């Protein structure tokens, strides 16, 4: 177990370095003057350009500038944006909202996704089964920004059931609609995965044994079948949680949620390189760590899989 974790952590290092290097190179090394439009209509004063060039090591060749950046990153210093804001503080401010939004989305995936999957999986070929299959296919085909815009139009503006935008007040109630939109795609996958997994396990030997022992239907399904069927579903939801923690650019944009996705989108469009590299580094790390955690949980839930 300890060796497995160590090996996985070591394998992460080249991935993190590679990812951050690509982002760093894309942001800094591409053609175009990094100071264009930075100082309003006038060109920037030479003193300012000089100070900023020194601050971000813009005169160094790319690999050296990158290594310097990585060095300060290892000391926990994410640097400052062109406006002098601390990247670390900005990320800390945005993160709680994104975590809350991700939790709301996961709650929808569990409630609706697993619920619909169980209903469909228990009665294969029935009306409910076909309804779930068709509706998940439809949901998968509608891009998230379309679902977001349409739900915002009807539920938010026309009928006023939910607030149309979140703004500064990221309360749980305000996050219900964006959370549902964010969950929609994965919700459909969860439902399908639960259905397949359940249908497969209902024919398993241990289920037949449980029925033969004379256990009531409720116990056979609730305890024996369900616990085994939900293992792949839980790992899918776990991996999805890792991705959601990276922020949702589209959903946060539509509903004006002040989370990490919004922050990243804003800094990409204003070409705020330090913020982009810092945020991407954090979200790649979170994504990899959550995935490692999910793999460990998988081994714990299903002892047949060992990480010896």
């Amino acid at each position, binding site marked *: 177990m300890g060796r497995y974790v160590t090996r996985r952590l070591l394998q992460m290092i*080249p*991935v*993190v370095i*590679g*990812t951050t290097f*690509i*982002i760093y190179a*894309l*942001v800094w090394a*591409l053609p*175009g003057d990094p100071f264009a439009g930075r100082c309003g209509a006038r060109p920037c004063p030479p003193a300012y350009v000089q100070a900023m060039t020194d601050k971000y090591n813009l005169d160094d060749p790319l690999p050296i500038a990158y290594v310097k950046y990585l060095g300060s990153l290892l000391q926990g210093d994410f640097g400052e944006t062109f406006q002098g804001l601390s990247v670390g503080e900005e990320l800390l401010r945005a993160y709680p909202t994104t975590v809350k939004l991700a939790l709301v989305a996961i709650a929808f995936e569990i409630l609706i996704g697993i619920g619909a999957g169980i209903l469909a999986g228990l009665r294969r070929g029935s009306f409910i089964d076909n309804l779930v299959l068709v509706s998940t*296919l*439809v949901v*998968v*085909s*509608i*891009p*998230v*920004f*379309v679902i977001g*815009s*349409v739900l*915002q*139009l009807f539920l938010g*503006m026309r009928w006023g059931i939910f607030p149309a935008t979140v703004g500064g007040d990221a309360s749980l109630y305000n996050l219900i609609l964006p959370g549902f939109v964010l969950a929609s795609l994965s919700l459909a996958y969860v439902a399908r995965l639960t259905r397949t997994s359940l249908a497969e396990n209902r024919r398993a030997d241990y289920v037949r044994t449980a029925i033969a022992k004379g256990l009531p239907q409720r116990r056979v399904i609730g305890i024996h079948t369900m616990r085994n069927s939900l293992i792949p579903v839980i790992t899918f939801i776990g991996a999805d949680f890792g*991705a959601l923690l*990276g922020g949702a*650019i*589209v959903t946060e*944009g539509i509903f004006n949620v002040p989370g990490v996705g919004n922050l*990243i*989108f804003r800094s*990409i*469009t204003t*070409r705020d390189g330090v913020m*982009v590299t810092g945020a*991407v580094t954090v*979200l*790649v790390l979170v*994504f*990899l760590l959550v995935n490692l955690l999910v793999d460990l949980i998988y081994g714990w839930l299903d002892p047949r899989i060992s990480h010896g």
Partner: protein
Amino acid sequence: MADPTPPVVLEVEAPAATETTVRTLGRDAWHDLVRKPTFIISAVLFLFFVTIAVVPSLFTSLTPTDCDLALSRQGPSSAAWFGYDNNGCDVYTHTIYGARASIMVGVLTALGVLILGGVAGTVAGFYGKATDTLVSRLGDIFFGIPLLLGALIVLVSFPGNAETPELVTISKVVLALAVLGWPQIMRITRSSVLQVRSADYVQAARALGAGGARMILKHVVPNSIAPVIVVATIAIGGYIAAEATLSFLGVGLQPPVVSWGLAISRAQDYVRTSPHMLLFPASALSLCVLAFIMLGDAIRDALDPKLR
């Protein structure tokens, strides 16, 4: 002199014999496919959208530039079934002409990903050892960058303007998506090639003295490509949605190009008063994505012998 009747008798007997001939996997899959309603529906939709993309003038007598500001944002009527947009352009015409850019991006991206990921995956799977490690880790690095986020950074770094030719704008989006999307195909190709590599017929070819290139092209690729093609087909739907999302965020395709994503993006500002501007292009987009996903699903079911 000789009477030509005997051959006719033989021909009459022939059809009975073909009933029992062995069908190949491809023929078998086709036999299954044409009896599946989802395949028929998705194939008809697919042909419909491809026809629209190739010859949009078949479906509308107007062109996207036939606009009359006096008609700005008028709702659907008998004269214009889908209504007019902000510039007084016919939304129906724009929806028809939008198919071309969207489908082009989807198909070209799938081709690019197929070439990049297919070659990388075949090489990694066939040669194994250090090559495999190198390619797989490289794939991990690109896999760690979220598709949308990476494409955003690439596209913001190479901005275009209204004078950029249509084809350049489209290929920029295609390149951005393909460069970040290839690891998915690489992983599937690799695992598919790994299964085939140790097969008897490959070993036989090796024993007969076939070189690496010959074994790959004649034996490995034809036997491992089916699942890859299926995933690529399903992915076309995803790429169309990704293009629309990027255009929606304002960095994908740019205004002289007509696309669904752009139309939806423009509609956002007037969604409260003129929802028809949003709903019609959004429906076309979703229907098109649905067609590709359903088509890929049906082909996968037909090609997968385990589901028989």
